[in-house]
């Protein structure tokens, strides 16, 4: 019996919507559209080619009630959930590396304080540090949106700029 949802291994990139996370392996491509202050966290194990992508919305899940239900929504819980699911699938914890992109601060609103994007970036860095996962590349901050595509097999995180000026970066 098939269940509803997107089946891994589909030829098209799998969309990782806001507050979602997906773990896959090999040449499957995971994509998140239009990250503004949201943060894309990509983890992968180069040896087993197992990896995942989370489209994080908020920094701190440990303080929220519903982080069990939606671990992908928060930087800390998303990183832990990605790691756990990858290890369950056969990845080696100690080999896992991380790349992050996003966390822009497009608006200078008073209510935003230090910047909502910056808070996500800081939270992700702290959680990775805590778990001993090396952050090998990042493209964060600024005042532009980003669309990202991640392939666990190569560990490549492609970052397309949303403002049409900064082009495409490969991390």
């Amino acid at each position: 019996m098939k269940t509803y949802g997107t089946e891994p291994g589909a030829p098209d990139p799998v969309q990782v919507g806001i507050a979602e996370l997906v773990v896959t392996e090999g040449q499957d491509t995971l994509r998140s559209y239009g990250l503004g202050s949201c943060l894309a966290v990509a983890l992968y194990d180069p040896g087993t080619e197992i990896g995942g992508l989370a489209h994080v919305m908020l920094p701190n899940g440990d303080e929220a009630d519903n982080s069990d239900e939606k671990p992908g929504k928060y930087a800390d819980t998303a990183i832990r959930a990605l790691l756990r699911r990858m290890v369950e699938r056969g990845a080696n914890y100690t080999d896992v590396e991380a790349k992050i992109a996003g966390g822009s601060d497009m608006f200078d609103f008073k209510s935003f304080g230090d910047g909502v994007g910056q808070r996500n970036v800081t939270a992700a860095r702290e959680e990775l540090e805590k778990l001993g996962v090396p952050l090998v590349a990042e493209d964060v901050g600024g005042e532009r949106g980003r669309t990202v595509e991640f392939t666990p097999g190569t560990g490549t995180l492609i970052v397309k700029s949303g403002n049409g000026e900064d082009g495409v970066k490969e991390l």
Partner: protein
Amino acid sequence: MKLDVKALGTFYRIAREGAGLAAGRLTQMTGVETQVGITKLNFMRGAEIRQDFEDGREKVGVRVELSGGLDGHSVIVFDRESARSIVETLIADDESEELDEMARSATTEVGHIINSGFVDGWADVLETVIDVSTPEFVTGVTVDPFFGDLEGAVDDDDLALLFQSQIDAVGTEIGFRHYLFPEHDSMAGLLERLRTSEGIEYDKLDGFDRLAKQGAREVAKTATTLTGIETSVEIRRLNFVSLEVIPEEVSNERLVGVAFEFDGTPSGYLLFLFDEESATEIVNAMVPTGTSGDGFDEMGKSAITELGNIMASGFLDGWANVLDTTIDHSPPEFIHDIGPAVIDPVVIQLGENQDFAFVFDTLVVADGREFDCEIYAIPDEEDLERALNDLEVDRVAETPTTAEFDEIEDA
């Protein structure tokens, strides 16, 4: 009847769970993979439901009456092509273009299973039994055969609480919408049971909806005055959604926008979003020399920003006027970026304190010209609740501008 955000949040989760159950059953039955799309809780008037529904396409529906734990109607609506595709997955050798007896009964069966999926989701969470009537097959282009005779749900002026979910089959053209029309009294009882805070009088929500309409009218009027382009309000909805849904609803194209934060009762965020063609058209209408190339130069940016600024003042003055309060807004922030990236900072900021949001979603269009402006007004939840409670329902009716707009509203 009174409602509070907690109760609405519970409803929202139920609707989403129901959509998951329904999608799973559709997959089991047809072998086609399915995906649950956006789930929305709308407060809509009959006239708006009608407008939303009547896209000129022939539709096929399966509806059931609910009783017991929840009274109302649950209706599954397929585009005709979707219904055909489903029939083909069930009856391999059925190639006739018409929906014959066999195809109708196959569609009805599928629709019924989906309806039951949604209803079971509700019954589970509410821990109650909901009885489902024999399914009824309906077909037509307009709203009437589907909802026309449903009790209380679609009077043109009544504000109905409507649950909408979208389910799509992966890699096929199959998709459908689910509408749930709860009966007023039954819904009032449930809201009462689930409510944990003081809550909002439902009638006040109605008043708030009317003032949102006024805000939208102000915007269209301002846009016409400033650009010389004749504009009107095409769609206006009051949605209650999970915050994550908001960026998903915005186009993945690059958009040109002007964003504001506003402060008062209520406070929140206001965004005006144009597609690039519309923004170019507006700049050409406002700046005599037009734009150079595809980008927006300083002149173009300042024209759009100025338009946004004046539209924002109009919109928020409309609100403040009815609420008898003051709402200040920040200086405008121009933005030109991919749709979801434009709105996610706002969603994130609100997400610090709330999981759901009321979204005032408005589309202003021009006749025969490119001018599509999507307006998102997203108030802070607590502020909104306070603003609604402070609102004297009578005042809405007394506000002189309402009368002025009555003749042109939703014409």
